[in-house]
């Protein structure tokens, strides 16, 4: 763990996260979330589905795009020269192998995200993360990503070029899968920020568990798909998703 991980998971990182509610805006409209208890249930179901998938994808993207020492932790092996901004070595070039591997990981993300609204939200956040990541951690590895990558892929590449491990990337992805919606619910319901901070903090063991799982899970929640599509069709909304 390094301060780079704190930077990546910081809600102040200007990657556009504050305009997404992770489905909580529609969950509130549908009556599914209305108090700290129902918010906790919502965050848990999101953590164990979308969060788990994002964590797996982010870890895979980091393993693909970082130096040899993290390779082999996920089943997407590609050969790359060592790359790490922190080690002072020259970063890995955006090899065609890496381009192909990230593209196929992006297709895996699509397959796990059949909702067009959720795909758009993920790609919008991925693009935002690439924009700030390129400036914060310049590296040719960014060029290996598709133009609007799924958010966990951008997060995984950011972790790699910042010298972090796949586990770090997974931790950031899992944490962000609940911190964003928690903040959104706090704003929308004018909830006690201390209550929201407390319930988010109590999810830490579950977040850690999700972040240390192996492979790239495909956990889905049709409820989140439905909420996202109904939300996307609305004109009166505060959040992009």
């Amino acid at each position: 763990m390094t301060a780079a991980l704190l930077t990546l998971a910081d809600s102040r990182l200007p990657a556009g996260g504050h305009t997404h509610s992770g489905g909580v805006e529609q969950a509130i409209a549908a009556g599914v979330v209305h108090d700290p208890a129902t918010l906790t249930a919502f965050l848990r179901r999101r953590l164990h589905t979308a969060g788990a998938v994002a964590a797996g994808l982010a870890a895979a993207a980091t393993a693909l795009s970082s130096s040899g020492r993290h390779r082999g932790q996920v089943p997407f092996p590609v050969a790359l020269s060592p790359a790490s901004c922190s080690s002072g070595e020259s970063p890995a070039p955006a090899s065609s192998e890496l381009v192909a591997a990230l593209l196929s990981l992006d297709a895996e993300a699509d397959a796990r995200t059949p909702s067009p609204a959720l795909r758009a939200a993920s790609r919008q956040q991925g693009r935002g993360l690439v924009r700030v990541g390129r400036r914060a951690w310049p590296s040719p590895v960014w060029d290996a990503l598709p133009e609007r990558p799924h958010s966990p892929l951008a997060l995984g590449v950011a972790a790699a070029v910042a010298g972090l491990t796949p586990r770090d990337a997974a931790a950031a992805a899992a944490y962000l899968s609940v911190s964003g919606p928690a903040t959104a619910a706090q704003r929308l319901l004018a909830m006690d920020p201390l209550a929201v901070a407390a319930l988010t903090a109590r999810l830490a063991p579950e977040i850690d568990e999700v972040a240390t799982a192996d492979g790239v899970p495909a956990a889905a929640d049709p409820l989140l798909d439905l909420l996202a599509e109904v939300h996307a069709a609305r004109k009166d909304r505060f959040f992009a998703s």
Partner: protein
Amino acid sequence: MPPDHNLDDYVDAPAPHRHSPEGRPGPLRIGLGGPVGSGKTALAAALCRTLGPEYDLAVVTNDIYTTEDADFLRRNAVLPDDRIEAVQTGCCPHTAIRDDITANLDAVELLEARHPGLELVLVESGGDNLTASFSYGLVDVQVFVIDVAGGDKVPRKGGPGVTAADLLVVNKTDLAPLVGADLGVMRRDADAVRGGRPTLLVSLREDPSAAAVADWVREQIRARSVQPA
């Protein structure tokens, strides 16, 4: 600081948005900020009507809850649909123009990609308070719009919008007699806190073309085109 480091290591090259990839200057981005009801959308509409025939332009709106402002611009047909983008601001219109400008940058870049000859983009903020201002990562210059009905004390109260905006517009001067506002006081107070930056007193009701503001915008576009950055 270690001897082999210097401050340049921490500082970026100039923000890339000011030039398109071909090296041609990108569109001038003007932020329109100000409190709710001061006339930002009316000013945006007026500028679209007046400058639309002269420049290739587009608008980004930042409504707090709905796409009402974007719909207003569409309904009034001041711009074709594909030149208006609305962004959601996640309950924080202020954050979206200053602290995390991602959604607005996405919208501006989308408009630039859709209209490669774009010369001017107006970014209209959601109504906020007197502390709201645009990040210069998002816009090149910004206009802060207040109105006479808000009281003639507003310029004296200051705040970053009033003191630091590149142009301060005091709208609804036609209401001054009705609300007992002293335009002379507003002008004097504004000049006192704005360090020589311009202030325009206008009435969009009396001059729907916003001629004075449009002139200022033309000047900004001209100044940029003769000064390669």
